[in-house]
C-alpha cells in the first residue's frame, strides 16, 4: 500500500511526520524524497517536525558512559574534516536524463550516499539515499550539466548556483591510483580553476559534492591530478561539458 498512488499534495504532505521520525522505508522513502524536490511547503513541514522530534530527545536524555567523551575527543583529534570535498560512496548506479523533468523524476533513482544523511533502505536491495543530495536537487535553480568524453565516458554534475554547490555523479570514471585523484575544473575566462578533488568509492561510483562558486565558469572538466591537487590541469581532460 502506498498513499503516493494519489497524486494530490495533501496525501504527500501527510508523510512528513513519518519522514521526520525516520519511519519511512523502501519505495515510500524514495518517493517521498522525490516529492520533496519541488514542494517547499513539504520541506518546511519536515523541518518543523524534525525540530519537534529533536525536542522529544530531551525526554530520553541520558548520561553516556564517561569514557565515551575521551574516546570521541581522541578520535576527533585524528579525524580530518570533510572540507571542501566530500566523497560519498553510492550503493547503486543512476542515470540522469538530460532535461530537468527527467532528472527530477530520477531524483528517486539518484540513490545516493552513505553520507551524513545517508539512510539505509531495507527491503529493496539495500539502496541508500541522501536527503542532502535531495536537498540540492530541490533547489529551484538546480540544473544538470552532463560531462562527456571523447572515449564515450560520461559524468553528471548537478549544479545549484544559488547554493554554490554541485554534486558529481558517475560510474564510468574508473579507479585512480592511491596517489591520484580526479580534479574538477571550473573553466572560465581566467582559465581553469580547481573546484574540487574526488575519488570513486570502493564500488567504482563517484558521488561527490563541493561548495563552489561557478559564476565565472563556462565549462566544467575533469582530469587526473596528484591527490593534493594542482594549480593547473596536468593531464588531458577526460570529460567536460558546458555549464
Amino acid at each position: 500500500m502506498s498513499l503516493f498512488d494519489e497524486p494530490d499534495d495533501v496525501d504527500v504532505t501527510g508523510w512528513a511526520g513519518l519522514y521526520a521520525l525516520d519511519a519511512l522505508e523502501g519505495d515510500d522513502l524514495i518517493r517521498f524524497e522525490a516529492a520533496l524536490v519541488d514542494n517547499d511547503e513539504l520541506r518546511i513541514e519536515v523541518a518543523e517536525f524534525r525540530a519537534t522530534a529533536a525536542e522529544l530527545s530531551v525526554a530520553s536524555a541520558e548520561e553516556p558512559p564517561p569514557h565515551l567523551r575521551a574516546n570521541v575527543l581522541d578520535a576527533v583529534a585524528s579525524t580530518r574534516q570533510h572540507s571542501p570535498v566530500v566523497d560519498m560512496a553510492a550503493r547503486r548506479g543512476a542515470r540522469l536524463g538530460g532535461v530537468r523533468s527527467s532528472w527530477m523524476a530520477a531524483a528517486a533513482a539518484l540513490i545516493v550516499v552513505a553520507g551524513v544523511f545517508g539512510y539505509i533502505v531495507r527491503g529493496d536491495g539495500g539502496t541508500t539515499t541522501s536527503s542532502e543530495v535531495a536537498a540540492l536537487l530541490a533547489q529551484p535553480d538546480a540544473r544538470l550539466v552532463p560531462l562527456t568524453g571523447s572515449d564515450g565516458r560520461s559524468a553528471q554534475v548537478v549544479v545549484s548556483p544559488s547554493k554554490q554547490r554541485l554534486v558529481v555523479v558517475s560510474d564510468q570514471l574508473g579507479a585512480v591510483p592511491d596517489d591520484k585523484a580526479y580534479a574538477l575544473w571550473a573553466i572560465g575566462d581566467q582559465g581553469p580553476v580547481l573546484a574540487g578533488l574526488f575519488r570513486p568509492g570502493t564500488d567504482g561510483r563517484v558521488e561527490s559534492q563541493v561548495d563552489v562558486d561557478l559564476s565565472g565558469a563556462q565549462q566544467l572538466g575533469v582530469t587526473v591530478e596528484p591527490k593534493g591537487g594542482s594549480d593547473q590541469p596536468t593531464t588531458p581532460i577526460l570529460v567536460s561539458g558546458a555549464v
Partner: protein
Amino acid sequence: MSRRLRMSHMDQLRSHDGDVLDLRQRLRGVPALAADTSPDALLVAIARGDREAFTLFYDQVIGRVYGVVRSVVRDPAQSEEVAQDVMLELWRVAPRYEPAMGKATTWTLTIAHRRAVDRVRSAQASRERDTRHVEMSPVEPAPDAAASVEIQLDRERVHRALAELTPSQRESVELAYFGGHSHSEVAALLGLPLGTVKTRIRDGLIRLRDRLEVTA
C-alpha cells in the same frame, strides 16, 4: 537544553589556530552562558576545525544524542558505538552544515536518530533471531539522577506535551521516535492501518510542535 560547560577540559586541549585562541579568549572574557557558546555558534567554529568548540558542543548535546540512540538501539555497547559515530560524523561534516538544515541541535539529533535507526534496521534480521533483544514497547526513559534542574524542567515540558496527545497519537509517535520503528512496524504493533498511523503521527507532531513552540 541547558548548557553544561566543562571549562576545565578546554585547557587540556591544545589550540590549533587563531580561531581556537579567539574562542578561548572570548569564553574567558564572558560569562559561561554567553551567546557565543550556543550550539549554533559553536557549530560555526567547529566547521573551522575548532576542537575546543567541539568539546563544548559535545557536552551540550551528548546527553540527548546518547539518550535517543539508546532508546532506539537499547544495547549500551552498541549505543555507545553509534553515539561515537554520530559525534565523529558531526565533526567531519560540520563544514557542510548550513542553517537551512535546521538548528545545530536539530541537525545533530536528526543525524543521531537516523544512525540509531540504521543500526537497528540493519541488525534487524539477527536481532529477531535473538528474542532477548526484541523490544516492542515504547521506552520509558529512566530518570537521570545527575540531571540538572534545567534538564528536568525541559524534560517535564516534553512529558507534559506528550501527555496532551491522544493515547494513540502518543503511542504512534513514541514507537516511531523512541522505539525507532518503521511506519509498517508501528501499524503492526498497534493493529492499525498504515493510513491511520500516518495521520496520528502527523497530528501528534503538529500538536507537539505547537505545544513546544518549535520553530524550524
